[in-house]
């Protein structure tokens, strides 16, 4: 088990190196000169050159990549923001909690809504409830996030005036963004839970449980859920990880100073250290979450556990 974890943790490093490289190439091939953006259009050529020298932009890309990677591995130095002149993680860590909160709340809401409804839908297969749920899930899953958020703002903020549309001052500010993020996820989770549950419902061991005299509730809670939820957990983990990097639109629409907002503005301003560090941060997080999900599997499914031992 520990060997497995160690192996997985180590495998993060090469993936990160590759990720960093790809982002480097992308940034290199996009237009815009950081020195020009920092100093403004009227800056003298000398000043521009001096700044480029300072930032290391006169060196070829590959060398800069190696310098950057070396900085990370030897000094844990991710550089400073061109704009704020602070170490990048000072910026990231200030903005990250907003995103984290959004992602956590959304994934919780999505699970609480999606999973039980999926179970109900499967157990009452082809009933009116099932059809109604399936149709609304299809509808929710196909709505684009920005449109849903605009509708929600229109209705709850402008029309009813009960919920704020921008800022992060109180918990109320989170309701609409979380709804925007959670509803489509809930719909997807519901569909997957339903499919899994229906599969499990056909299994012989469900009949065995009934033959022992277990009632419907017990069959669902003791025998079906654990088997049905395993693939669902992966999806929950993935949507959580996805949400961490996918709150951008919601952050922009609702004016929330989150990580997505930070990275977007950093891209516009060619604030390369922030973009890089943000990418590294998010991809590491993603990989750690996926590792966690896989480990969770082992706790639920004894068959996976014995595989880890081997």
């Amino acid at each position, binding site marked *: 088990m520990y060997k497995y974890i160690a192996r997985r943790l180590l495998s993060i490093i090469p993936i990160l190196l590759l990720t960093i490289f790809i982002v480097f190439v992308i940034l290199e091939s996009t237009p815009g000169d950081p020195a020009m953006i920092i100093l403004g259009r009227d800056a003298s050529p000398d000043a521009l050159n001096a700044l480029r020298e300072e930032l290391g932009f006169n060196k070829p890309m590959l060398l800069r990549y190696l310098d950057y990677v070396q900085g990370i591995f030897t000094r844990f130095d991710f550089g400073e923001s061109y704009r704020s002149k602070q170490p990048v993680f000072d910026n990231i860590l200030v903005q990250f909690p907003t995103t984290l909160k959004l992602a956590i709340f959304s994934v919780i809401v999505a699970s609480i809504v999606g999973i039980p409804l999926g179970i109900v839908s499967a157990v009452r297969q082809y009933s009116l409830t099932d059809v109604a749920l399936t149709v609304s899930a299809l509808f929710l899953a196909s709505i684009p996030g920005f449109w849903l958020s605009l509708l929600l703002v229109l209705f709850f903020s402008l029309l009813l005036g009960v919920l704020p549309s921008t800022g992060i001052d109180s918990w109320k500010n989170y309701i609409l963004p979380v709804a925007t993020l959670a509803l489509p996820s809930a719909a997807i989770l519901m569909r997957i839970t339903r499919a899994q549950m229906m599969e499990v419902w056909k299994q012989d061991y469900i009949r065995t449980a009934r033959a022992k005299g277990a009632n419907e509730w017990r069959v669902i809670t003791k025998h079906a859920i654990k088997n049905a939820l395993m693939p669902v957990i992966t999806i929950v983990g993935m949507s959580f990880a996805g949400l961490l990097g996918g709150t951008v639109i919601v952050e922009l629409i609702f004016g929330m100073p989150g990580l997505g907002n930070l990275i977007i503005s950093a891209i516009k301003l060619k604030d390369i250290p922030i973009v890089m560090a943000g990418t590294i941060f998010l991809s590491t997080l993603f990989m750690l979450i996926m590792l966690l999900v896989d480990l969770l599997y082992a706790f639920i499914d004894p*068959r996976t556990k014995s595989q880890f031992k081997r």
Partner: protein
Amino acid sequence: MNKENPILEIRNLEVIYQSRKRESKAVNKINLVLNRKETLGLVGETGAGKTTTALSILRLLPERTARILGGQILFDNKSILEIGEKEMQAIRGERISMIFQDPMTSLNPVVPIGEQIKEALVLHNSSGRSKKEIDDRTDEILSLVGINPERKSQYPHEFSGGMKQRVVIAMALACSPELLIADEPTTALDVTIQAQVLEMMEDLKQRFQMSMIIITHDLGIVAKTCDKVAVMYAGEIIEFGTFENFFCQDNRHHPYTVGLFGSIPKIDTDEERLHPIDGLMPDPTNLPSGCKFHPRCPKCMEICKTSLPNDTVIDGHMIKCHLFVEVVE
């Protein structure tokens, strides 16, 4: 047939499966009587309606597709098709248990086997056993089926096929049921283990004084274990009799049974080839008229094609075939 009060009586049971517009007749008005402490062998090819009959007794037929059209099932004189689901749940696992065909799939892969055996005891704890007593009983039943109680925290995938079937049997026996239905209990196992499991079941049956229904397509198993035999074909019981009727004196048999006997490899005659019955089971959505066996019957007569033979009973030995009608007359 028998004066004492039977444990199970099936009267005119009729079950169909419906899917879209097709309707298949799985069980067509069958009658069965099983006395206490008797073992009944329910024999027939796949699709003859054996499992459907068994599932009807437990009322575990697939809800959406299966329908019981008519008939009665009396368990201990109680008409169990009419009682409520709650009452049925109290019977399932406590008074009637079932061993399903495939031990590989009938155990829950994510629950330790001890838990699965214990479940029936917990669900039917009318005598108010303590936790400790339930655990002790679980251990006891595990030892009975030849599994070390220390393995109870292990999961199904850690057991071999034969061991899994023992777990399944332990699960079914946990509450000492009055009636045990075993659906092809050994088909998924290899031959050496088959014998062990059968022997164990026979042993446990004596110990618990159970009545048993063994569903099988193997007359060899029937010969080893059963007191009574019912042969099913296309949803009907076409021959019913005692062990003696089938395996000793009697030479009168339904042509289908004769065919089944022919398909047992005879060790003594040194014959290697099997004699499967020619033809296929009829399509249950479109059963032949008259005797359902007539398209495959080597002795088929004109009358067989149009008229359904009555049950002819001679000394408790029932045969549903036109060949034997004259014998009584």
